[in-house]
């Protein structure tokens, strides 16, 4: 492995943090979903790095799983976002407060 593991982990952490901040701070449902995707991929990077570091193929297999889950998640998520758009004509998550009333 050419790149040291620490560097990859730092990169993945930065990626995860970017996703997290996106999720928390954006007021757009699509951007929140994007943030979740970025966080998932940060985890995937760590898996790939670990697979290379210890020469274990299971890590790369796990990344394939994550991709599958991400695809399913984005499909369901976008459908929900679409339903929200149809209902409220807005993509702001804070407009979803019918449960409170």
């Amino acid at each position, binding site marked *: 492995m050419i790149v040291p593991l620490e560097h990859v982990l730092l990169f993945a952490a930065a990626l995860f943090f970017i996703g*997290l901040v996106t*999720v*928390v701070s954006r*007021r757009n449902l699509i951007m*929140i979903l994007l943030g979740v995707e970025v966080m998932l991929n940060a985890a995937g990077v760590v898996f790939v790095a670990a697979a290379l570091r210890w020469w274990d193929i299971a890590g790369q297999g796990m990344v394939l799983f994550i991709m599958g889950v991400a695809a399913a998640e984005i499909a369901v998520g976008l459908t929900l976002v679409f339903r929200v758009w149809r209902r409220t004509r807005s993509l702001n*998550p*804070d407009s*979803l*407060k019918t*449960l*409170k009333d």
Partner: protein
Amino acid sequence: MTATLCLTLFAPLAGALILALGGRALPRAASGLLACLAVGASLAGAILSWAQLKDGQELAVHLFNWFEAGGLRVSATLLYNPLCAAMTTMVAFVSLIIHVHSLYFMRDDDGWVRYFCYLNLFVFFMQSIAMADDLVFLFMGWEGVGFCSFSLIGFWYAEPKNVLAGNKAFLVTRIGDVAFLGALAVLFSATGDLSIQHLSGNAPVMAAGTLTLVGLLLLVAATGKSAQLPLLVWLPDAMAGPSPVSALIHAATMVTAGVYLLIRTFPVLLHADAVALQAVAVVGALTAFVAACSALVQHDIKRVLAWSTISQVGYMFLGVGAGDPSGSFFHLLVHAFFKSLLFMVAGIIIQALDEEHDIFRMGARVRGLVPGAALAFFCGAAALAGLPPFAGYFSKGRILENALNMAQTGQGVWIFVWAAGTLTALLTAVYSFRVFLLAFTGRPAQPPETGTEKTPAAMLHVLWPLALLAVTAGLMDLPAHFAHLVGVPAQWLDHMTGLVPAAPHGAEWTGTVAEGLDAGLAVLGLVVALALYGPWREHRAPAPDRGVARFLLNGWGLDALYMNGVARPYVRAASRVWQNVEDRLVDAAALGLGSLALRAGGRLSKWGIERLSNYLLWLLLGMVAMLVVMAAIGIR
């Protein structure tokens, strides 16, 4: 032997259970007969057991283990000795007569099955007291008779007055029971064993201080059950129950249970400091005197008898205190016969006069209404007064002779005890004949207010065995010089029970003096009663009760004293506690916690469900916190 003892003890319990579970399904006559049969079986068992008992033998019969806790092993063990044999036989015999009498007395009552069920249950508990060796087993019987007494005093529960009388009896006797438990605790911590047999055996080697404490606690326990000072207030009110109940529970058996307990555990008193026996004697003498004074002025025939019961049980205490349990037991037996007779005859009269209790409204007409009642009542009253040669003369004379013997030691306390006992003998004779003369002779001093009712003659006829015993029971324990005259063994009861009197044998003359004095006082009482209340007495209303008479009528103001000194302050304190502690502390704390939770919930909900983005933020913060904690403590 075990079989007959079990029959004695458990036949009444079986009767009570059958009546309780299926009594209503039985025909009326069958349930009554069943109750009588159960007690008859108990009597048969008692007699058969006695026949098998050898002289002076003492048997401990282990029936079954009851429970075991913290080193205390409680088992249903019986201690069968001649004293117990005589007691069980007396209890079963008197109970049987009272059961048969009740068949007639309660003939129109709706609570027929309930009545006989409680009556049978009572006999079971009373036999447990009479036979138990284990003091905890005895305590079960002790509480059981208390419960039956409570239920039967308030038997006619439709009237609140009766229920209150039952409550009073129950509560006042509980005070004595606390002392009983105290005695058990002291005994258990001192010896680790609660068997009467072991206790009697160990008493000579135990510390006198412990024995004194136990003896005094047992005395308090006995004063509760036997209605002695200071706990005597419940018995006069207990007359609210049916008359046969008064005869059984509040004259013949339960109220003498305290005396029986002291006789049974007499070695404790004997080896304790002298103060224990003195306390028993003083309580007995004082009670005898106080109650006799109150009996003098009562108008209600049953209340006269109730006060006289208290007074006579006081004599039994005096006998035990003077160190002669055998003489006390003699009086216990004799008293059971004549007092239950008196109560039941009184019950018949009350029924015949349609619930008239006032002796000033009775008079000679009663003799026509219930033929024979006057004779039966006279037998009982003469025995109560101690008129020779009725049974009470010998038993009470024996006790007073012992008191005189003790008085010769010159100690002030014994002189007081003897003087109180002797004075009471005179009062007893006066009130006994007063009630007899007022209730059965002359014209009623006040016009009768109630009608009359025909009573079945058999109701009286079943009482004749008791009347016969009231006359002749003295034969059981005649002193030698009387025994020669009639040709019966002298002091038979003493030899039979084998109870050794601890009282010193007095000089020759004390016996003669005591006997002469006793006979003289009884005759004097008869003369006084005749002079004041003879059949030729003036036909006028009794003087209104004022001053001393009112004081005595109300039982020396003890009721008022307890009401103002104990009950009312207690109720006041309880209501203070209710308002201050319950309402302002406990309730307020609970309510405060509740409203705190509500308000906190309201606050939280405000920033909880407002915005989805807040959820995410909190999720993040929570995760960070968890990670920080995990990083801090490390993961292994």
